[in-house]
């Protein structure tokens, strides 16, 4: 069964304190790994899709990387507005972009 595990469950940072979130997965034949940001009461906002080990993508203070077993979302010099829940997901083995989600990491950045 395809599984996605995210850690830590919650993370509190001071503004400017860089850190990384982890997403490990077990799926046969990875067809992409998705990262989303979700603010309270809102739908997930698409951030990145990674397809192959070694791939990296960046957006502002966020950089996502991918290995054969896990992905990291690096947050450099975070600001309070980066506070949100970050979700990762992988397509299941049907290959039709039906995503299996992790439980997310709740990030709180304090000024």
């Amino acid at each position, binding site marked *: 069964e395809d599984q996605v595990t995210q850690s830590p469950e919650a993370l509190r940072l001071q503004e400017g304190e860089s850190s990384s979130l982890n997403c490990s997965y077990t799926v046969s034949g990875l067809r*992409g790994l*998705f990262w*989303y940001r979700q603010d309270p*009461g*809102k*739908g*997930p*906002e*698409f951030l990145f*899709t990674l*397809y192959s080990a070694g791939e990296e993508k960046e957006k502002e203070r966020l950089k996502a990387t991918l290995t054969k077993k896990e992905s990291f979302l690096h947050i450099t010099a975070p600001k309070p507005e980066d506070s949100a829940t970050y*979700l990762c*997901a992988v397509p299941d083995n049907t290959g*039709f*972009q*039906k*995503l*299996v*989600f*992790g*439980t*997310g990491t709740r990030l709180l950045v304090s000024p």
Partner: protein
Amino acid sequence: SAVISQKPSRDICQRGTSLTIQCQVDSQVTMMFWYRQQPGQSLTLIATANQGSEATYESGFVIDKFPISRPNLTFSTLTVSNMSPEDSSIYLCSAYRAGSGELFFGEGSRLTVL
């Protein structure tokens, strides 16, 4: 990217009633999906909305409880039937366009059943 609009954004319903949620995408997409997010939980796929044919449901979800329509490439509805308090959740529509590598979500419909 695609913009997905959902209506209603929130509703409070009585036990035993049904509610239909609408999802409109601003451009043609290949696939549309419905997810549920229960309080404090992550997202769970309910079904894939297939254009012009019956939806494909995931384990634990059935058509009688969650009938879905998708009459064209940009619109879908999800009905939550004979509601109970356990159906209180956020229901999310998502859309995927082949070749884009991106799967987008609407803002969600927050349903509270009393």
